[in-house]
Each structure stands twice: as C-alpha cells, then as structure tokens.
C-alpha cells in the first residue's frame, strides 16, 4: 500500500526488537472479544489512486458547479475569483503539512503570516486587535456572545432580525444549552428594525449584521451609543468581508466586537466549508478573547520574532477556565485569506468592492423591472432581496432546471410564511452581463 512504508520484512525485524510475535500481540490491553480479527465488513478494500479519482470524480460530476452555470448565490457564502497564486502557495508542504506553531523556532513562517493576518483583519474592520481565526462566521458570532457575557457578567443577547439565520440559530443553540437568554428580533427583510427598545440592564450584547442578511446597510453609530449607555456590547457580524472595501467598517460605528466570515477572500465555496471566522475586538477586552493570538517578541539574540501568546486564555493551559474550547482553528484558510488580501492591497480591495457593488446594482435594476418583482432594498452592497409574486423555493428549482443558480430563497434558511416569497440575489465580479441576462430572462419565464 502506497502510503505505508513498512514491508513485512521490516515488520518482522521490528517485532523481534520489541519482543512480541505479532502486531496483534501489541493489542493485549484490548478485551479479547472486542478485538477484530478481520478487516471490517461492509467497506471496500484499498484502491489505486486512479480508482479513487473515478469514484470521487463520479460524485463530483453529479453536481452542477457554480463555475458551470450563471450563479447568483450568496446568503453568507460568495463566489469570488481567487488568484492562482493563492492556491499554489497554500499548498506548499511547509504550510499545508505543518502543525499549530507551538514551537516558534520552526514555525516563524506560520507565526508571521498569522501576525499579518491579525493586522489585516484589525485594519479592515477598524478594530484594535484580531485573533488568528475561528471556524467560521457563525461560530465566531456565538464566541462573541459568550465573550460579551463574560465581559459584562450578564446573560442575555439581543439578536437582530437581520442576522444570518444560521448565525442566529447557532447562538440560540448555545444559549439554550449553556444558559444564556437570546432575544430574537423578527425577520427584518426591509432593514427597518430598531433594537434600542430591546436594551435593558440584563442585556450583555446586541448582535447586528452589516450588510444585513437581506443586504441592507445600516449606520449603527446611534445604536452603539445606546448599547454602551446600557452597559452592553455591540457585536457586528459581517458575512461578506469584501464589502469593507467600500463600506464604513464596524469599528468606525462603535462596535465592540466584530465577527465575520472570511471565505470571500482566498477560499472556495466548497459546499460550505472549511471557511474562516474572523474575530476582532477592542483592546480593552483582549484577555477575554477566544482563540489563538500570534504576538511579536524578540529572541535570545534580540531579533524580532513571533510566538503564540496570551495562551493562558486557552484550553490547553487554562483547561476548564479557558475563554473557549477552540483548539484547531482555520489556519490554512486564514493563510488563503491573508494572501488574497495581500495581493489585492488597498487599491485592489477597494476596486473589487466597487466592482461587486456595480454588478449587483446593475442586476437589481434589471430584476426589479420584471413584472411582479419588488426590490426590498434601498441600500445594499452586492446582495439584495426580491419579493417575488410566488414562493421562491420552486422558482429557484425551476431556474436550476434551466441550469441557472438564481439565488437563495430566504425560506431555505428560515422556513416561515413571511419568508416564502423572498429571494436573496447576489452578484460578484464573476458575473458577466451574459449571466445577468440569463437570470433576467430565466426569471421572467419562470414567473410568467
């Protein structure tokens, strides 16, 4: 077998050195009746590489990839063009096959890019500090709520009706089982909610999203002031990080914690994972932050270098008193993110964001002109909500039959009657005018 270097001859020599007759003899501590004598039934035996390619390739061919069809799907995961250099570089064995950089002498590469990543995340969100990544936007959000609970010593989170339903659900799940209360605002499809009335002395945090799940852009400055006045923290989630090339960052609106989904930069859609959660906060809350941190220091020769730091917040040191149980994070996805953002730079990110906005704005004009279709957004970045004259789920299915991936029905994520006719439509730099024309005419036909 190609991955197993020992031959039977090797094994015999090694067993002799150990002083046992067989590999099975090394399993003496396993209760005899629990030790299997044969390969487990019901599974195939080892396959050549080309056969594995056939099996998995066969599965892949049963799907309709977004690169094969006009695609306007968003709802927290966005298809962007990833420069070829990114995927090439993250596959370098020294990145791909290295472990968490606990030994800084042999991990300065990883540590330096994490330090750069943290800086980029802090800059883009306009926050003081950022960690070295979480799993994804949803889990970062619930970590942020837990952190707010610790900081404020309160146990009630107010969740916006514009928050991504998955993020909301993950927070609600955690709240339900770990003992904090969640107040979920009604679905805010029109971007009009005001959460100030929800504040109270027991509220630890308010969680909002910008652009919202429905695409609306909001200025949270006033909300932040009210939240702070009530002794709570404002948590702002960003599901489309590219927006921050064009949109006022949460840090400038008074956010205390910013969480985000970083997939848009450097990471493929990949059917939903692995993605990379971004987590940034005000410096004063640093020691309550979850996750890993790379910090600058000097070595014994006085040279600048980097180490993992403040690990007394973490589970491997602090155990049951840790700020989070997170261990493995999204290192390689963070690397892809930071590479893509380094390639873009200030000018590139701004232009990418402008391009996304332009594409979506032009698409919105076209689709809003269709009979019976209503655009719910006054503002948006690269995604907006349409109210259709009929349920969105079958519309999207009908479009898929035409090989058009026409958007995400809100009902898919929030199966409630008021969501039934709502369709989220996103456009990115990858959508051509032909794509848009295909969606326009496809939608027209399906709605006719």
């Amino acid at each position: 077998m190609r991955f197993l270097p020992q031959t039977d001859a090797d094994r015999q020599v090694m067993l002799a050195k150990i002083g046992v007759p067989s590999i099975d003899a090394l399993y003496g501590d396993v209760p005899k009746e629990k030790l299997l004598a044969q390969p487990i039934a019901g599974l195939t035996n080892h396959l050549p590489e080309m056969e594995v390619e056939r099996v998995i390739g066969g599965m892949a061919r049963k799907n309709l990839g977004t690169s094969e069809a006009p695609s306007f799907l968003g709802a927290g995961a966005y298809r962007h063009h990833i420069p070829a250099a990114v995927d090439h570089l993250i596959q370098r064995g020294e990145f791909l096959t290295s472990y968490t950089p606990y030994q800084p002498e042999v991990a300065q590469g990883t540590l330096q890019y994490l330090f750069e990543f943290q800086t980029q995340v802090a800059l883009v969100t306009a926050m003081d500090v950022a960690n070295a990544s979480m799993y994804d936007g949803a889990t970062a959000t619930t970590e942020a709520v837990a952190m707010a609970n610790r900081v404020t010593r309160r146990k009630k989170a107010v969740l916006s009706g514009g928050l991504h339903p998955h993020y909301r659900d993950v927070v609600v799940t955690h709240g339900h089982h770990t003992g904090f209360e969640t107040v979920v605002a009604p679905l805010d499809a029109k971007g009009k909610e005001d959460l100030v009335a929800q504040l109270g002395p027991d509220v630890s945090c308010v969680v909002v999203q910008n652009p919202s799940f429905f695409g609306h852009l909001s200025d949270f400055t006033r909300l932040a002031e009210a939240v702070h006045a009530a002794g709570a923290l404002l948590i702002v989630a960003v599901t489309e990080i590219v927006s921050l090339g064009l949109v006022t960052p949460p840090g400038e609106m008074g956010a205390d914690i910013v969480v985000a989904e970083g997939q848009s930069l450097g990471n493929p859609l990949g059917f939903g994972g692995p993605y990379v959660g971004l987590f940034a906060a005000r410096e004063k809350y640093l020691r309550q932050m979850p996750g890993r941190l790379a910090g600058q220091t000097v070595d014994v020769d006085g040279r600048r270098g980097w180490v993992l730091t403040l690990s007394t917040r973490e589970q491997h040191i602090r155990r049951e008193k840790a700020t989070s149980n997170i261990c493995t994070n999204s290192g390689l996805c963070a690397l892809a993110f930071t590479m893509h953002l380094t390639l873009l730079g200030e000018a590139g990110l701004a232009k990418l964001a402008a391009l996304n906005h332009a594409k979506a704005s032009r698409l919105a004009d076209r689709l809003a002109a269709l009979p019976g279709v209503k655009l719910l957004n006054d503002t948006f970045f690269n995604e907006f909500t349409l109210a259709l004259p009929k349920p969105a789920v079958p519309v999207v299915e009908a479009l898929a039959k035409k090989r058009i991936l026409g958007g995400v029905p809100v009902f898919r994520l929030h199966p409630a009657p008021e969501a039934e006719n709502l369709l989220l439509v996103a456009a990115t730099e990858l959508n051509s005018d032909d794509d848009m024309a295909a969606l326009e005419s496809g939608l027209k036909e399906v709605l006719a």
Partner: protein
Amino acid sequence: IEEPLIFEMDVKGRSGVDLPDVPQHKERLGSLKRKGAIGLPGLAEPQVVRHYTKLSQKNYAIDMSVYPLGSCTMKHNPRLNEKMARLQGIADLHPMQPVSTVQGALELIDTLAHWLKTLTGMPAVAMSPAAGAHGELCGMLAIRAAHLAKGDARKRILVPESAHGTNPATAASIGYEVDPVPADERGRVDLAAFKAKLGPDVAGTMITNPNTCGLFENDIVDIADAIHGVGGYFYCDGANFNAIVGRVRPGDLGVDAMHINLHKTFSTPHGGGGPGSGPVVLSAALAPYAPLPYVTHGANGFDLVEHDDGPDGPKGSFGRLKGFHGQMGMFTRALSYMLSHGADGLRQVSGDAVLNANYLLACLRDELTAAFPGTCMHEALFNDDFLEGTGVTTLDFAKAMIDEGYHPMTMYFPLVVHGALLMEPTETESKIGLDRYIGVVKGLAKRAKMGDAEYFRGAPYHTPRRRLDETLAARQPILRWKPEETKQAAE
C-alpha cells in the same frame, strides 16, 4: 535571510491583482460609503509569491521529516486528497444550491458517514463539527439534550487528569462542573476512584481511549458499564483513534459519542493549525439529538434536513452548531484517504502506527526512561528521570532535536507524567527513518548525561530564531503591526 512584514513592503497604489473597470451603476450605499484609507499595503504579485515562499521556508512540516508530536497524529497527507477536494463539482459548489443540483455532494457526505459509522460500530454520525473540540461540544450537547429530554439536567462530568485541555474546557463551556479523576500507577483511569465519584448528578464522562499516555484503557468496558449504570453517558475523545481504527470499534466498548479528527486519523492536512473536521459518531441513545443539518435518503435521491422543531421542541436535534453543512473540503480529503486504504489498509494503518511507536519505545527505553512498563499503543511516553541531575530539562532536550532536523516531540503532556516526552511516529514513518530518529534521540540523551547542559540550554542554534521571549510577548502584547512599534523592535 530576514523577511519583512508585508506592511514594510508597501508601495502606495500598487496591487497584485488586475480587475476590470467598474461599469456605470447607481450607487446604493446610503450614508455608508467608506471614508479614508484602510491602511492595507500594496504589493505586486511577484513580491507576494516570494514573501510567502520565504515564510514557508521558515517552517517545519511533515513533508520534511518525522513530526513526532504525541497526540497530534502527524501522518503523511496524500496529495491525491488535495486534488480531489479541488475538483470542479466539489470546490465550486455553493452550500445553498438546490439539493437537486448537489446530489453527488450529498452522496459523498453520506458515503463518508457510512465509513465512519462502520469503522466505529455506531449507528449515527453528526457531520457538521468543524474540529475536534467542536465535536466535543457537539457530543456533550447531545448528552445534555438527552438528559434534558428526560427532565434531568445533571451537573457533573468526570474527566481524567490526563485529558486534553479541550475536554474540561468543553464541559465547562456548557455549564458542567468538571470533576477530575486521577490516573492509577499504570497510567490508566483509576477505576475505583472513578466509581467512587459516580452518582445521580453525573451527566457523563469524557475519556480518551487510547489515552494520552498512549495506553489502552483496559477497564474501558467496566467504565462504560459503570457510567451507564448511573444513567450517564460515555463521551470518548477520539483523538487517538489512529491506534485502533479497523481493529476495535468504539461502539463495541459502550461509547455513546466520539468525535473523529479527520485531520488526524484520516490525514486531512493540519495546515499550520487548521482547518480540521470533527464528525461525532453517536449511540442509539444519543442519535435523536444529533444537530442539524443531516443527510437522508429520500424518494428522489439524497435530501438535506436543515430544520426541525428546534432545541425547545419536544424531540429532535439539539439545534445548529455551525453555518452551512460542515467541512466538505475535509470530507472529500478524508474519503479519498479512506478509499485509498480501504478496510484492509486502515487495519494496517493502526497496526503499523502501534508497531512504530513500540519500536521507538523498545529502542529508546534503555537510554530514556519509559513512563510506564509494557508496550504502548500508537505513542511512546517517557518521563524526564533520565535527565535527572544533568541540568537539562525536557524543554532543552526537545529544542535540541531541532538542530538535528526534527520537530520536537510533545513536551510536558500529559500532565500526569513528570517532564513528559510524548512521541507519536504514525504509520507513515519507515523503519529506516525511525532508525535515524532513534539514533539522534539516543545521541542527545548520551550527550545530556555526559554533562553538556550548556549546549542544550542554548539550543536550537540553526533556526531562523532561537528561544523567543514568550514572557515579554505576553506581558507587553504586540498583536498587530503598527509603524512605530515594529520599527523599534526591528532595530
């Protein structure tokens, strides 16, 4: 050769990406158009490629040599897996496409689930956890949900002192009281002490098996029976599944929930810290509480259940744990690995992993000091008795490995062994490679005993940086680049 930070290579206006011109459009940003610059540096593509190439060259990796980190299962990561994960029709799938357009993807998840269930002998698996610790959370939430469904919340979780930090952290994060169980002199859970702690308020136990001392818990069936006897559940930390895959099914041992680190046993790359993937197999008792979403077989093929009556509902999932459906990219890699090895190959995997660890143990036990007598499972544990009186610490010893071309072993873990040195070679090391490694370790041990403490205290000597000041980093945290701070430090 020093490599600056990207921020120190900034040239204003430069970019490593070309984009088409922005077409005419109506601006719809309301009042939220960003004012002022972000502060991101501008580099061209050649400079970016070099930067990351040079950073990578400062890392150690499995692709270079033995990576004997105990508890981490640093095995070979086949490149076929990377290729499979990048296929069109996998990498370019949006998670919210109509399920009619992702039947192959759901089939892949279902196939992987079948392998995981079959290999563990468990009836159900939750696929969405993003990593091992997230899987622990998933399993513990299922346990909590099961108790709640019976109207009996319970408070305590029994956790051995030798456990990974994630175990107590997870249990505590959802409000359980962590009750530590001591190890006995054989490096196993002290069964009597364990039983003594049982009671009607015990929700369950979290036990790693094989345990972090690299030993199989030979009382495991008694432990399972005992915890079940008080109505508790048995959570098994599956980090060390590599030692037994294909040979022992955790389900046969009475396990109720176990996470599987796809990035350990099933070779998805560690990537400098992630991403991982931590599916959790569940017993029949816990299966009803598995989180959303999950794949089912429907009339028209595969279906994806994304909603139910919620955590407050009368029965059903404990809720949602993560955005979307799980780490599909890691599923693809893991399935590629499993198909490559097959049932026969996976059995050989565990056998060779255990063989290699025992070979290390046998070859090194005279020069180092084994923590426990007898054979081990997939990792060999030593204490620092052999360094007594030498002035060399476990840390020094481990750092000296670096100059010899090896990553240090795991140090000072598990906590139950003094100055622990935990070595996990995995099955992908060859005998030739192990012999070379053994030679180096023995040589260093001899050198330490000969009284060359000075040398060890200074090691490593040939790395880009040597013995970084971790105290300074924690006392005066610099966690991001700012022009003045970094310049100062660089001078």
